[in-house]
């Protein structure tokens, strides 16, 4: 019985399919009793090769592919891609389109944060709160459907502008939705932040220090909850954000202190819902008249894209943080290089310091607390000479051995 090899740590694998996980990812926990001693994870379970497909399609088609990188932050990916292509081709986006883009992006943030709040409540076992947040979320989905025609995968952003205008009749619906949310925000803050159980479960749980947040290059609400003052809308404004007053929301504005724990991440996301409401209201009142796209005819747009050469980067503050698209075009129909870095890609590594030393029961809420989006992230593939493959562990090992031999010779 006293065999040393039978003692802790023992290994608990979770995933790739597990009731606690909403998306496929493989975790390996090294446990000591109830405590997580170390953790490793393997994303890449839902790799679909989107970049590879994109390099065989033209920018107008890719716009609809980027919508489907992620079903929750679709407009952020499309916007980042469109902005990169617009810079390469030199297309000037009309001002009205910039405002419409900002409005849709903020509605996306509202629905995404409410969705997250519900998932977080569910992970804590507070299902009545899940149902409450998802019920109020439906109103933003209705407005998004009214504005874009779709509930998810909006398909509103096109290279050079947007595909639909916002007409004055729609202002009333938007306004109604905003005032509902502003009225609800106090209630939601009260339900989440003053609840004894949520405080006990989330305070000082899954802590990510400011230094770790900076070292691991975390982005978005995950970084802001650790006290890092980053927000692309404030630091590198795009679309209409340059004209608007956007300040990064940090937890100490609300509570006077920063812990960098799960509780702070709830604070940041809920306050951002209120901020988004203000931004949309400001956009609506300041939206200039004019065209909503630089080039309405798709054939002409394609001809412009086909002639373009150069490279550019599109950066957008998605609900989960910075979303980054690199596009290189070489005067062909399809871009010659397209690289996507989704926000969750930057945030995933922060799981490791967060989970170390925590209890097994806290795993679901800590994993959910960074709002991971794995379908965004899973794109590890190597493309060379037109043929492509995914690197397996064996492949990587072989490459590593080859490099050592090269260096030795």
């Amino acid at each position: 019985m006293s065999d040393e090899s039978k003692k802790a740590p023992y290994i608990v694998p979770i995933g790739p399919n597990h009731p606690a996980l909403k998306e496929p990812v493989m975790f390996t926990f090294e446990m000591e009793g109830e405590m997580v001693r170390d953790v490793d994870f393997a994303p890449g379970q839902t790799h679909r090769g989107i970049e590879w497909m994109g390099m065989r399609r033209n920018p107008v088609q890719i716009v609809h592919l980027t919508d489907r990188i992620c079903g929750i932050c679709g407009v952020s990916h499309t916007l980042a891609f469109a902005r990169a292509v617009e810079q390469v081709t030199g297309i000037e986006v009309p001002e009205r389109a910039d405002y419409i883009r900002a409005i849709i992006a903020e509605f996306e943030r509202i629905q995404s944060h409410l969705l997250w709040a519900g998932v977080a409540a569910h992970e804590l076992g507070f299902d009545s709160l899940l149902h409450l947040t998802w019920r109020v979320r439906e109103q933003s989905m209705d407005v998004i459907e009214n504005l874009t025609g779709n509930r998810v995968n909006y398909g509103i952003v096109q290279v050079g502008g947007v595909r639909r205008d916002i007409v004055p009749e729609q202002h009333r619906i938007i306004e109604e939705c905003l005032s509902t949310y502003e009225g609800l925000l106090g209630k939601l803050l009260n339900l989440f932040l003053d609840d004894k159980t949520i405080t006990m479960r989330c305070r000082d749980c899954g802590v990510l220090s400011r230094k770790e947040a900076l070292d691991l290059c975390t982005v978005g609400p995950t970084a802001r909850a650790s006290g890092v003052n980053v927000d692309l809308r404030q630091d590198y404004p795009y679309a209409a954000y340059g004209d608007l007053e956007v300040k990064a929301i940090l937890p100490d504005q609300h509570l006077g202190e920063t812990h960098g724990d799960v509780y702070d991440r709830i604070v940041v996301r809920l306050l951002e819902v209120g901020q988004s409401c203000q931004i949309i209201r400001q956009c609506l009142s300041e939206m200039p008249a004019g065209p909503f796209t630089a080039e309405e005819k798709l054939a002409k747009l394609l001809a412009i894209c086909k002639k373009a050469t150069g490279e550019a980067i599109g950066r957008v503050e998605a609900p989960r943080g910075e979303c980054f698209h690199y596009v290189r075009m070489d005067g062909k129909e399809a871009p010659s290089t397209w690289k996507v870095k989704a926000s969750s890609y930057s945030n995933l590594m922060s799981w490791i310091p967060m989970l170390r030393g925590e209890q097994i029961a806290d795993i679901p809420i800590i994993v959910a607390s960074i709002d991971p989006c794995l379908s965004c992230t899973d794109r590890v593939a190597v493309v060379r000479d037109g043929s492509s493959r995914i690197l397996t562990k064996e492949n990587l090992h072989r490459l590593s051995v080859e490099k050592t031999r090269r260096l030795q010779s």
Partner: protein
Amino acid sequence: MKLNASFNRSLWVYHFNSGSCNGCEIEIVAAITPRYDPERFGIKLVGSPRHADVMLVTGPVVHKMKDRLLRVYAQMADPKLVMCIGTCGISGGVFYDSYNLEGPVDEVIPVDVYIPGCPPRPEAIIHGVVKALQKLERIQGGEQ
């Protein structure tokens, strides 16, 4: 195969993500929340395939998930149904030419109900569940 009486009223569904973009996932969750509330008909999302009558498969089947999909399908107790949710599970959708796809869902496991849409609306998903219920009733009636 006969279904017992208690089966008539409650249909438990299990959700399997085979490489989806999350669009269908959030619409499935939206479908079980209060606006639509199918739980009043006994339709409930469960965490284990062993408890489930219906499996909802979303997404095209990517290479890594093929084996898992087959194993999860094998774990479900008979009689079982599979619902394929979303265009990419039906035909590949926008991902049709990807190198990492093991084909549409019905090339991997048998599918009973197809729900097109990218993603389908919650109403469409609930409509699909009703179709699945009708199919189970036919199985109960002795038809295969």
